[in-house]
Protein backbone atom coordinates (compact mmCIF):
# COMPACT_ATOMS: atom_id res chain seq x y z
CA UNK A 1 0.00 0.00 0.00
CA UNK A 2 1.14 3.51 -0.65
CA UNK A 3 2.72 5.28 2.24
CA UNK A 4 1.40 8.69 3.11
CA UNK A 5 4.23 10.99 4.09
CA UNK A 6 3.67 12.87 7.30
CA UNK A 7 2.74 16.16 5.60
CA UNK A 8 0.07 17.99 7.51
CA UNK A 9 -0.85 20.16 4.50
CA UNK A 10 -0.80 23.95 4.48
CA UNK A 11 -2.18 24.49 7.96
CA UNK A 12 0.45 26.35 9.94
CA UNK A 13 -0.95 25.07 13.18
CA UNK A 14 -0.79 21.45 12.08
CA UNK A 15 2.77 21.97 10.83
CA UNK A 16 3.86 23.39 14.19
CA UNK A 17 2.14 20.54 15.98
CA UNK A 18 3.99 18.03 13.84
CA UNK A 19 7.29 19.80 14.41
CA UNK A 20 6.72 19.90 18.16
CA UNK A 21 6.03 16.15 18.01
CA UNK A 22 9.43 15.52 16.45
CA UNK A 23 11.15 17.79 18.97
CA UNK A 24 9.54 15.81 21.79
CA UNK A 25 10.52 12.53 20.13
CA UNK A 26 14.20 13.44 19.73
CA UNK A 27 14.47 15.02 23.20
CA UNK A 28 12.69 12.05 24.74
CA UNK A 29 14.97 9.67 22.87
CA UNK A 30 18.01 11.42 24.35
CA UNK A 31 16.50 11.23 27.83
CA UNK A 32 15.78 7.55 27.25
CA UNK A 33 19.41 6.96 26.26
CA UNK A 34 20.44 8.60 29.53
CA UNK A 35 17.98 6.46 31.51
CA UNK A 36 19.32 3.37 29.76
CA UNK A 37 22.89 4.24 30.73
CA UNK A 38 21.87 4.93 34.34
CA UNK A 39 19.93 1.68 34.61
CA UNK A 40 22.87 -0.18 33.09
CA UNK A 41 25.21 1.23 35.74
CA UNK A 42 22.80 0.50 38.58
CA UNK A 43 20.03 -1.93 37.59
CA UNK A 44 17.89 -1.07 40.61
CA UNK A 45 17.68 2.67 39.82
CA UNK A 46 14.20 2.61 38.35
CA UNK A 47 12.93 -0.35 40.30
CA UNK A 48 10.40 1.88 42.06
CA UNK A 49 8.58 2.53 38.77
CA UNK A 50 8.56 -1.14 37.87
CA UNK A 51 7.28 -2.09 41.29
CA UNK A 52 4.55 0.55 41.07
CA UNK A 53 3.46 -0.82 37.71
CA UNK A 54 3.68 -4.30 39.18
CA UNK A 55 1.15 -3.33 41.84
CA UNK A 56 -1.42 -3.19 39.04
CA UNK A 57 -0.12 -5.90 36.73
CA UNK A 58 0.75 -8.59 39.25
CA UNK A 59 -2.88 -9.30 40.24
CA UNK A 60 -3.57 -9.91 36.52
CA UNK A 61 -0.74 -12.44 36.25
CA UNK A 62 -1.76 -13.85 39.59
CA UNK A 63 -5.29 -14.47 38.39
CA UNK A 64 -4.08 -16.00 35.12
CA UNK A 65 -1.67 -18.21 37.05
CA UNK A 66 -4.43 -19.32 39.39
CA UNK A 67 -6.64 -20.18 36.41
CA UNK A 68 -3.82 -22.16 34.79
CA UNK A 69 -3.16 -24.11 37.98
CA UNK A 70 -6.86 -24.82 38.48
CA UNK A 71 -7.33 -26.11 34.95
CA UNK A 72 -4.10 -28.10 35.06
CA UNK A 73 -5.13 -29.74 38.33
CA UNK A 74 -8.44 -31.14 37.02
CA UNK A 75 -7.01 -34.27 35.29
CA UNK A 76 -4.85 -34.95 38.31
CA UNK A 77 -7.82 -34.59 40.61
CA UNK A 78 -9.81 -37.16 38.63
CA UNK A 79 -6.86 -39.54 38.57
CA UNK A 80 -6.34 -39.10 42.29
CA UNK A 81 -9.92 -40.09 43.02
CA UNK A 82 -9.58 -43.43 41.26
CA UNK A 83 -6.04 -44.07 42.38
CA UNK A 84 -6.74 -43.34 46.01
CA UNK A 85 -7.70 -46.91 47.07
CA UNK A 86 -4.59 -48.54 45.67
CA UNK A 87 -2.47 -45.77 47.02
CA UNK A 88 -3.97 -46.23 50.44
CA UNK A 89 -2.85 -49.85 50.59
CA UNK A 90 0.57 -48.99 49.23
CA UNK A 91 1.00 -46.23 51.78
CA UNK A 92 0.10 -48.55 54.66
CA UNK A 93 2.82 -50.93 53.55
CA UNK A 94 5.22 -48.07 53.24
CA UNK A 95 4.48 -46.80 56.74
CA UNK A 96 5.42 -50.17 58.19
CA UNK A 97 8.63 -50.21 56.21
CA UNK A 98 9.50 -46.68 57.20
CA UNK A 99 8.99 -47.19 60.91
CA UNK A 100 12.43 -48.64 61.38
CA UNK A 101 14.04 -45.87 59.41
CA UNK A 102 12.22 -43.23 61.42
CA UNK A 103 13.59 -44.72 64.63
CA UNK A 104 17.06 -44.52 63.22
CA UNK A 105 16.55 -40.97 61.99
CA UNK A 106 15.35 -39.94 65.46
CA UNK A 107 18.50 -41.28 66.96
CA UNK A 108 20.60 -39.48 64.39
CA UNK A 109 18.69 -36.27 64.94
CA UNK A 110 19.35 -36.48 68.65
CA UNK A 111 23.01 -37.14 68.09
CA UNK A 112 23.20 -34.31 65.58
CA UNK A 113 21.64 -31.88 68.07
CA UNK A 114 24.04 -32.98 70.73
CA UNK A 115 27.07 -32.57 68.46
CA UNK A 116 25.92 -29.16 67.30
CA UNK A 117 25.53 -28.05 70.90
CA UNK A 118 29.09 -29.19 71.46
CA UNK A 119 30.21 -27.07 68.52
CA UNK A 120 28.33 -24.06 69.81
CA UNK A 121 26.40 -23.51 66.60
CA UNK A 122 23.16 -21.76 67.25
CA UNK A 123 20.27 -22.96 65.15
CA UNK A 124 18.79 -20.12 63.15
CA UNK A 125 15.03 -19.79 63.20
CA UNK A 126 14.37 -20.66 59.56
CA UNK A 127 10.70 -19.93 59.35
CA UNK A 128 10.01 -18.68 55.83
CA UNK A 129 8.94 -15.08 55.26
CA UNK A 130 6.07 -16.06 52.99
CA UNK A 131 5.05 -18.79 50.60
CA UNK A 132 3.77 -17.49 47.27
CA UNK A 133 3.76 -18.23 43.56
CA UNK A 134 5.91 -16.96 40.73
CA UNK A 135 3.32 -15.52 38.36
CA UNK A 136 5.13 -14.09 35.35
CA UNK A 137 8.59 -13.60 33.94
CA UNK A 138 10.66 -11.59 31.49
CA UNK A 139 9.85 -14.06 28.73
CA UNK A 140 10.81 -11.76 25.86
CA UNK A 141 14.10 -10.58 27.36
CA UNK A 142 17.51 -12.21 27.53
CA UNK A 143 17.53 -11.52 31.27
CA UNK A 144 15.85 -14.01 33.61
CA UNK A 145 13.55 -12.29 36.06
CA UNK A 146 10.32 -13.57 37.53
CA UNK A 147 7.57 -11.77 39.40
CA UNK A 148 6.42 -13.06 42.77
CA UNK A 149 2.87 -12.30 43.90
CA UNK A 150 3.88 -11.24 47.40
CA UNK A 151 5.60 -8.01 48.40
CA UNK A 152 6.30 -5.60 51.17
CA UNK A 153 2.92 -6.26 52.79
CA UNK A 154 3.96 -9.88 53.32
CA UNK A 155 7.35 -8.93 54.68
CA UNK A 156 9.39 -9.57 51.54
CA UNK A 157 12.58 -7.49 51.38
CA UNK A 158 15.36 -6.99 48.86
CA UNK A 159 18.06 -9.65 49.00
CA UNK A 160 15.99 -12.47 50.43
CA UNK A 161 16.54 -15.85 48.80
CA UNK A 162 13.64 -17.61 47.08
CA UNK A 163 13.48 -21.39 46.93
CA UNK A 164 11.13 -24.01 45.67
CA UNK A 165 10.47 -27.41 47.19
CA UNK A 166 13.42 -28.93 45.29
CA UNK A 167 15.97 -26.19 45.58
CA UNK A 168 17.06 -22.61 45.09
CA UNK A 169 15.16 -20.45 42.57
CA UNK A 170 16.73 -17.02 42.96
CA UNK A 171 16.75 -13.91 45.08
CA UNK A 172 14.56 -10.85 45.46
CA UNK A 173 15.95 -7.75 43.72
CA UNK A 174 13.01 -5.33 43.86
CA UNK A 175 10.01 -5.14 46.15
CA UNK A 176 6.65 -3.47 45.57
CA UNK A 177 3.57 -3.39 47.74
CA UNK A 178 2.12 -6.69 46.52
CA UNK A 179 4.84 -7.90 44.17
CA UNK A 180 8.55 -8.62 44.08
CA UNK A 181 11.00 -9.18 41.27
CA UNK A 182 13.14 -12.27 41.62
CA UNK A 183 16.43 -12.69 39.79
CA UNK A 184 16.50 -16.38 38.89
CA UNK A 185 19.73 -18.30 39.36
CA UNK A 186 19.75 -18.92 35.59
CA UNK A 187 20.06 -15.16 34.94
CA UNK A 188 23.36 -14.34 33.19
CA UNK A 189 24.31 -11.96 36.00
CA UNK A 190 23.39 -14.20 38.92
CA UNK A 191 26.19 -15.69 41.01
CA UNK A 192 25.67 -18.11 43.89
CA UNK A 193 28.49 -19.50 46.04
CA UNK A 194 28.07 -23.27 46.25
CA UNK A 195 29.90 -26.38 47.33
CA UNK A 196 29.83 -29.93 46.08
CA UNK A 197 28.07 -32.14 48.51
CA UNK A 198 30.12 -35.13 49.43
CA UNK A 199 33.50 -33.40 49.61
CA UNK A 200 32.62 -29.70 50.11
CA UNK A 201 34.58 -28.51 47.07
CA UNK A 202 33.90 -24.76 46.85
CA UNK A 203 32.57 -23.43 43.55
CA UNK A 204 30.58 -20.59 41.99
CA UNK A 205 27.23 -21.25 40.30
CA UNK A 206 26.72 -18.59 37.64
CA UNK A 207 23.70 -18.37 35.34
CA UNK A 208 24.29 -18.94 31.64
CA UNK A 209 21.10 -17.40 30.25
CA UNK A 210 20.03 -20.57 28.44
CA UNK A 211 18.37 -22.20 31.43
CA UNK A 212 21.55 -23.91 32.62
CA UNK A 213 24.07 -23.07 35.30
CA UNK A 214 27.82 -22.79 34.88
CA UNK A 215 29.75 -24.26 37.79
CA UNK A 216 33.24 -22.80 38.19
CA UNK A 217 35.68 -24.19 40.69
CA UNK A 218 37.07 -21.57 43.04
CA UNK A 219 40.53 -23.14 43.12
CA UNK A 220 41.28 -23.47 39.42
CA UNK A 221 43.35 -26.38 38.25
CA UNK A 222 42.50 -28.83 40.94
CA UNK A 223 38.82 -29.64 40.47
CA UNK A 224 37.38 -32.47 38.43
CA UNK A 225 33.61 -32.50 37.97
CA UNK A 226 31.60 -35.58 37.14
CA UNK A 227 28.11 -35.75 35.70
CA UNK A 228 25.68 -36.08 38.60
CA UNK A 229 27.70 -34.01 41.07
CA UNK A 230 25.24 -32.09 43.21
CA UNK A 231 25.90 -28.58 44.45
CA UNK A 232 24.40 -26.93 47.51
CA UNK A 233 24.62 -23.31 48.65
CA UNK A 234 27.60 -22.74 50.91
CA UNK A 235 26.30 -19.68 52.79
CA UNK A 236 29.44 -17.71 51.95
CA UNK A 237 28.68 -14.07 51.32
CA UNK A 238 25.60 -14.09 53.48
CA UNK A 239 22.56 -13.93 51.20
CA UNK A 240 21.80 -17.61 50.63
CA UNK A 241 21.50 -19.82 53.66
CA UNK A 242 23.72 -22.90 53.47
CA UNK A 243 22.68 -26.37 52.33
CA UNK A 244 19.96 -25.45 49.88
CA UNK A 245 20.20 -27.65 46.78
CA UNK A 246 21.11 -25.63 43.67
CA UNK A 247 22.17 -27.68 40.67
CA UNK A 248 23.38 -31.01 39.37
CA UNK A 249 26.25 -31.27 36.89
CA UNK A 250 25.30 -32.77 33.53
CA UNK A 251 28.77 -33.07 32.06
CA UNK A 252 32.14 -34.15 33.34
CA UNK A 253 34.89 -31.55 33.01
CA UNK A 254 37.78 -29.87 34.75
CA UNK A 255 37.27 -26.54 36.52
CA UNK A 256 34.18 -25.40 34.58
CA UNK A 257 31.10 -27.45 33.86
CA UNK A 258 27.43 -27.15 33.06
CA UNK A 259 24.69 -28.00 35.48
CA UNK A 260 20.94 -28.28 35.54
CA UNK A 261 19.02 -26.44 38.24
CA UNK A 262 17.30 -28.75 40.70
CA UNK A 263 14.29 -26.49 41.18
CA UNK A 264 12.28 -25.80 38.06
CA UNK A 265 10.91 -22.31 38.38
CA UNK A 266 7.33 -22.46 37.20
CA UNK A 267 4.00 -21.12 38.25
CA UNK A 268 2.73 -24.47 39.55
CA UNK A 269 5.06 -24.91 42.47
CA UNK A 270 5.29 -22.80 45.56
CA UNK A 271 8.05 -20.25 45.86
CA UNK A 272 9.23 -19.90 49.43
CA UNK A 273 10.83 -16.60 50.41
CA UNK A 274 13.33 -17.05 53.21
CA UNK A 275 15.14 -14.61 55.43
CA UNK A 276 18.52 -13.36 54.28
CA UNK A 277 21.19 -15.48 55.81
CA UNK A 278 23.69 -13.80 58.08
CA UNK A 279 26.66 -15.98 58.78
CA UNK A 280 27.15 -16.52 62.52
CA UNK A 281 29.97 -14.23 63.60
CA UNK A 282 31.47 -16.66 66.05
CA UNK A 283 32.09 -19.10 63.24
CA UNK A 284 33.41 -16.46 60.87
CA UNK A 285 35.93 -15.16 63.38
CA UNK A 286 37.17 -18.52 64.49
CA UNK A 287 40.47 -19.39 62.76
CA UNK A 288 40.38 -22.61 60.81
Amino acid at each position, binding site marked *: *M*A*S*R*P*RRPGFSRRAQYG*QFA*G*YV*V*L*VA*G*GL*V*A*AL*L*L*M*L*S*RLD*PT*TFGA*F*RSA*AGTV*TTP*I*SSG*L*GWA*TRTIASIPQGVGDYFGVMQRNAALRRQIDENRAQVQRARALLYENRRLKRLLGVRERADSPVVTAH*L*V*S*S*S*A*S*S*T*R*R*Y*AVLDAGRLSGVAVGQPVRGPEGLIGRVVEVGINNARVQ*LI*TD*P*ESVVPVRRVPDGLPAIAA*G*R*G*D*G*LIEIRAVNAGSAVFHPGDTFFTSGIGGIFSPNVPVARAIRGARDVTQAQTLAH*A*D*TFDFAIVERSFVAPETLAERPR
Partner: protein
Amino acid sequence: MARPRGPFDPPPPSFLAMAVPAGSVIFGSMLTLLPIIAGVPLLPPFGFIMLLGWRLARTEALPVWSPLALGLADDLVSGQPFGFAMLCWAVAFVMIDLVDQRLVARDFWQDWLIAGGATAIYLLFGRLVATPLSAYVDMFVVAQIAVSVMLYPVVAQLVGWLDQRWVSA
Protein backbone atom coordinates in the same frame (compact mmCIF):
# COMPACT_ATOMS: atom_id res chain seq x y z
CA MET B 1 -6.33 30.89 18.59
CA ALA B 2 -9.15 28.37 18.62
CA ARG B 3 -11.07 28.74 15.39
CA PRO B 4 -14.56 27.23 15.28
CA ARG B 5 -14.67 24.13 13.15
CA GLY B 6 -15.86 24.92 9.62
CA PRO B 7 -18.19 22.67 7.66
CA PHE B 8 -15.35 21.40 5.42
CA ASP B 9 -12.83 20.63 8.14
CA PRO B 10 -12.18 16.94 8.79
CA PRO B 11 -13.93 15.60 11.88
CA PRO B 12 -11.75 15.40 14.98
CA PRO B 13 -10.36 11.93 15.62
CA SER B 14 -12.62 9.83 17.78
CA PHE B 15 -11.49 8.39 21.09
CA LEU B 16 -11.30 4.90 19.63
CA ALA B 17 -9.16 6.08 16.73
CA MET B 18 -6.51 7.07 19.27
CA ALA B 19 -7.07 4.40 21.89
CA VAL B 20 -7.13 1.28 19.71
CA PRO B 21 -3.65 1.64 18.13
CA ALA B 22 -2.01 2.60 21.44
CA GLY B 23 -4.02 -0.01 23.34
CA SER B 24 -3.04 -2.79 20.95
CA VAL B 25 0.66 -1.93 21.32
CA ILE B 26 0.37 -1.88 25.12
CA PHE B 27 -1.51 -5.18 24.99
CA GLY B 28 1.36 -6.63 22.98
CA SER B 29 3.85 -5.48 25.62
CA MET B 30 1.68 -6.91 28.39
CA LEU B 31 1.83 -10.43 26.95
CA THR B 32 4.82 -10.91 29.28
CA LEU B 33 2.23 -10.95 32.09
CA LEU B 34 1.17 -14.44 31.02
CA PRO B 35 1.90 -16.97 33.77
CA ILE B 36 4.95 -18.50 32.09
CA ILE B 37 8.24 -18.69 33.95
CA ALA B 38 10.58 -18.78 30.98
CA GLY B 39 14.02 -20.32 31.29
CA VAL B 40 15.11 -18.88 27.95
CA PRO B 41 13.95 -15.86 25.94
CA LEU B 42 10.77 -17.31 24.45
CA LEU B 43 8.38 -14.59 23.42
CA PRO B 44 8.97 -12.27 20.49
CA PRO B 45 8.69 -8.55 21.30
CA PHE B 46 4.97 -8.32 20.52
CA GLY B 47 4.69 -4.66 21.53
CA PHE B 48 7.45 -3.55 19.18
CA ILE B 49 6.12 -5.60 16.25
CA MET B 50 2.65 -4.14 16.85
CA LEU B 51 4.11 -0.63 16.89
CA LEU B 52 5.90 -1.29 13.59
CA GLY B 53 2.69 -2.69 12.14
CA TRP B 54 0.80 0.51 12.91
CA ARG B 55 3.64 2.79 11.83
CA LEU B 56 4.23 1.03 8.51
CA ALA B 57 0.66 0.31 7.47
CA ARG B 58 -1.25 3.20 9.07
CA THR B 59 1.20 6.07 9.41
CA GLU B 60 -1.25 8.53 10.92
CA ALA B 61 -2.68 6.20 13.54
CA LEU B 62 -0.07 6.99 16.19
CA PRO B 63 1.26 10.48 16.96
CA VAL B 64 4.93 11.19 16.34
CA TRP B 65 5.87 11.19 20.02
CA SER B 66 3.95 7.98 20.86
CA PRO B 67 6.95 5.56 20.87
CA LEU B 68 8.22 7.32 24.00
CA ALA B 69 5.03 6.73 25.98
CA LEU B 70 4.47 3.23 24.65
CA GLY B 71 8.13 2.33 25.16
CA LEU B 72 7.85 3.47 28.76
CA ALA B 73 4.94 1.08 29.27
CA ASP B 74 7.00 -1.72 27.71
CA ASP B 75 10.00 -0.95 29.91
CA LEU B 76 7.87 -1.37 33.02
CA VAL B 77 7.07 -5.00 32.28
CA SER B 78 9.73 -6.31 29.88
CA GLY B 79 12.69 -6.99 32.18
CA GLN B 80 15.11 -5.14 29.90
CA PRO B 81 17.06 -2.24 31.43
CA PHE B 82 14.86 0.81 31.96
CA GLY B 83 14.82 3.20 28.98
CA PHE B 84 15.71 0.52 26.44
CA ALA B 85 12.35 0.32 24.68
CA MET B 86 11.83 4.11 24.91
CA LEU B 87 15.12 4.72 23.12
CA CYS B 88 14.83 1.95 20.53
CA TRP B 89 11.21 2.61 19.62
CA ALA B 90 11.91 6.34 19.18
CA VAL B 91 14.94 5.56 17.00
CA ALA B 92 12.86 3.12 14.94
CA PHE B 93 10.26 5.85 14.26
CA VAL B 94 12.93 8.32 13.15
CA MET B 95 14.56 5.67 10.94
CA ILE B 96 11.27 4.77 9.28
CA ASP B 97 10.62 8.47 8.66
CA LEU B 98 14.02 8.70 6.94
CA VAL B 99 13.14 5.67 4.81
CA ASP B 100 9.81 7.25 3.95
CA GLN B 101 11.60 10.34 2.66
CA ARG B 102 13.49 8.17 0.16
CA LEU B 103 10.71 5.87 -0.91
CA VAL B 104 7.72 7.40 -2.60
CA ALA B 105 5.57 4.39 -1.86
CA ARG B 106 6.09 1.14 0.02
CA ASP B 107 4.46 -2.14 -0.77
CA PHE B 108 3.88 -4.93 1.72
CA TRP B 109 7.13 -6.74 0.96
CA GLN B 110 9.13 -3.62 1.66
CA ASP B 111 7.15 -3.15 4.89
CA TRP B 112 8.04 -6.69 5.90
CA LEU B 113 11.71 -6.10 5.07
CA ILE B 114 11.80 -2.90 7.11
CA ALA B 115 9.97 -4.48 10.04
CA GLY B 116 12.15 -7.61 9.96
CA GLY B 117 15.35 -5.57 9.84
CA ALA B 118 14.18 -3.28 12.61
CA THR B 119 13.17 -6.20 14.85
CA ALA B 120 16.46 -8.01 14.24
CA ILE B 121 18.50 -4.91 15.12
CA TYR B 122 16.25 -4.27 18.14
CA LEU B 123 16.72 -7.78 19.53
CA LEU B 124 20.47 -7.90 18.87
CA PHE B 125 20.95 -4.48 20.46
CA GLY B 126 18.84 -5.61 23.40
CA ARG B 127 21.01 -8.68 23.83
CA LEU B 128 24.17 -6.53 23.82
CA VAL B 129 22.79 -3.96 26.24
CA ALA B 130 21.02 -6.22 28.72
CA THR B 131 23.20 -9.30 28.92
CA PRO B 132 26.94 -9.78 29.39
CA LEU B 133 28.74 -11.02 26.28
CA SER B 134 29.67 -14.25 28.03
CA ALA B 135 26.04 -15.38 28.29
CA TYR B 136 24.91 -18.29 26.13
CA VAL B 137 21.80 -16.66 24.68
CA ASP B 138 22.76 -16.00 21.07
CA MET B 139 21.02 -19.02 19.57
CA PHE B 140 17.83 -18.07 21.37
CA VAL B 141 18.05 -14.50 20.10
CA VAL B 142 18.43 -15.83 16.53
CA ALA B 143 15.35 -18.00 17.04
CA GLN B 144 13.51 -15.01 18.51
CA ILE B 145 14.41 -12.94 15.44
CA ALA B 146 13.17 -15.69 13.11
CA VAL B 147 9.85 -15.97 14.97
CA SER B 148 9.44 -12.19 15.03
CA VAL B 149 10.05 -11.86 11.29
CA MET B 150 7.52 -14.62 10.61
CA LEU B 151 5.06 -12.90 12.92
CA TYR B 152 5.00 -9.58 11.08
CA PRO B 153 2.44 -10.54 8.39
CA VAL B 154 0.08 -11.78 11.10
CA VAL B 155 0.46 -8.54 13.01
CA ALA B 156 -0.02 -6.52 9.82
CA GLN B 157 -3.26 -8.44 9.22
CA LEU B 158 -4.35 -7.76 12.79
CA VAL B 159 -3.55 -4.08 12.41
CA GLY B 160 -5.59 -3.93 9.22
CA TRP B 161 -8.51 -5.63 10.93
CA LEU B 162 -8.37 -3.35 13.98
CA ASP B 163 -8.11 -0.34 11.70
CA GLN B 164 -11.14 -1.31 9.64
CA ARG B 165 -13.19 -2.38 12.60
CA TRP B 166 -12.50 0.44 15.06
CA VAL B 167 -10.29 3.23 13.78
CA SER B 168 -11.47 4.09 10.28
CA ALA B 169 -15.05 3.06 10.95
